């Protein structure tokens, strides 16, 4: 430590340059979070899982595009594709959410953040935005691969491409809904613990436990109960909203006339989780 005094001998310089406002700070935290979600700026180990999931999802999309180009059949449409990937998304969320929030909590970095011009709302907002982008990209990029495959093999030129685009855009919106719902649930669970394994386990457990409930409800006698069964699990909830808003998506879920109920629950769930997350960080920030 004594060599320090030698190094010190160059004088201290004051910083006279610009200091950016909260917007720039939010932006840099967002970019940092988005990079962290895919393991950039982290060890090689941190890159394995996100890229593995991304690789599998993309591979499926490439295969689907190839099958369609060769045979003209469409095994899965864009929305069905998102549903089919649901478990991979959960896996991804269970890895990324702890990476984004549990890690900061574990290391005790939060006091360093909150002693700077950064509010709890900025922190939560940047983390949510980063993760929504990351999860959305996980679905939207492969969907775009499928679109490209379809567009380049289109038989009727531009009109087919436009029609295809008409299918893609709602599907991107649908992916955004997936991202929003899973991010808010995932981050809320992850923010409760500093232990990454607990957070990941908790997230998977929440999604895992709710699936059998849907199964049980959907074999009840009452049609209403069957049609409302999807509300019990986040995954079928998203499918329900998709089914209602894009009727020809054929998600395989029967929601009857309860479409609006699905949408309302989805919105309430997202908003509720985000508010709880914010409340959690309001409390943490003052520690």
């Amino acid at each position, binding site marked *: 430590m004594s060599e320090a005094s030698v190094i010190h001998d160059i004088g201290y310089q004051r*910083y006279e340059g610009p200091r950016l406002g909260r917007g720039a700070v939010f932006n840099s935290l967002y970019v940092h979070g988005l990079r962290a979600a895919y393991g950039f700026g*982290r060890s090689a180990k941190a890159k394995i899982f996100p890229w593995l999931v991304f690789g599998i999802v993309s591979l499926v999309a490439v295969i689907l595009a190839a099958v369609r180009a060769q045979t003209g059949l469409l095994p899965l449409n864009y929305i069905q594709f998102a549903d089919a990937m649901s478990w991979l998304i959960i896996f991804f969320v269970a890895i990324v959410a702890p990476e984004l929030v549990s890690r900061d909590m574990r290391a005790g970095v939060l006091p360093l953040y909150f002693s700077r011009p950064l509010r709890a709302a900025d922190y939560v907002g940047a983390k949510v935005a980063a993760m929504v982008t990351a999860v959305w990209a996980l679905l939207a990029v492969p969907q775009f691969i499928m679109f490209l495959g379809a567009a380049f093999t289109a038989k009727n030129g531009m009109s087919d491409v436009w029609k295809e685009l008409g299918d893609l855009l709602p599907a991107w919106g649908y992916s955004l809904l997936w991202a929003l719902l899973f991010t808010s649930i995932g981050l809320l669970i992850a923010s409760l613990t500093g232990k990454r394994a607990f957070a990941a386990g908790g997230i998977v457990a929440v999604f895992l436990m709710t699936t059998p409930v849907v199964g049980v409800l959907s074999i009840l006698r009452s049609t209403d109960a069957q049609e409302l069964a999807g509300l019990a699990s986040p995954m079928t909830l998203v499918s329900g909203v998709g089914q209602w808003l894009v009727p020809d998506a054929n998600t395989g879920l029967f929601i009857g006339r309860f479409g609006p109920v699905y949408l309302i629950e989805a919105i309430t769930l997202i908003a509720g989780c985000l508010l709880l997350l914010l409340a959690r960080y309001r409390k943490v920030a003052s520690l």
Partner: protein
Amino acid sequence: MTQGLTKTYGGRVTALDNLTVDVEPGIVGLVGANGAGKSTFIKIMLGLIAPTSGTVRVFDLDPTSQPDQVRNRVGYMPEHDALPPDVSAAEFVTHLGRISGLPRTAARERASEALRHVGLYEERYRQIGGYSTGMKQRVKLAQALVHDPDLLLLDEPTNGLDPAGRDAMLALVHRIGTEFGISVVTCSHLLGEVEQICDSLVAIEGGKLLRADRISNMTEVSDVLAVEVSEGTQELADALEKLDLPVRIDGRVLLVPLEREDTYDRILRAVADLDLPLHRLDQRRHRVAELFAPREKADV
């Protein structure tokens, strides 16, 4: 510069009880036992928690209503571990520089600068997880410096350091306060280390102000000479008594007030006459500790 008025912080526990203090720029030591309210005081200055009643002014700004302006000019070094193990110091300090609002390149430059000033230039690309406690404390100090604050709030900067590391850290804090032109408020429960480097001292106990003054005012009482001999301490004490020197025996050390110019010589002569092996003879300032003597024993 840091102007504290009345702050009562309540709820179930009263951490600060009607504390009024006004601090000048320079290095300020904030001393008190564990739980005296030092950290609470710092958190209120950062605007992390609002005072229950009373007001605080930092650079004439109110941290409660203008936290951004205050935090732009303040660097905070927390007491506890606050570093992720799996990134390099350079990367981490750069990131926090950006969170402080520095543009990308400026953040990178300032991070290297700050790490250089705390003596971690060579090691800055290593992962923090592999650092020693002393190095981690330095990283924490560097991140508080990265955005060039006008005031540093250091919460127990010497926590967990060995004596050498502690001296190095104190020397660094002293440098920051004197050469860098940054005011420092440093918190400690050890009076001894704070008095070495601070210009003024604020002592709090149980959330109440015990004393706030400049160190020079506290120590202006006459200096003492400490004499230590390897053997014959008692004989020397007797000899000095005969010379009309008011000796006080403090363990193996004899304390003699330095009242006259020739006190030095008279002690030396007495030692030489008795032919005792002189171990040490040095001038000691009245320790601030003596001002808080009964409390100090309870703390340490």
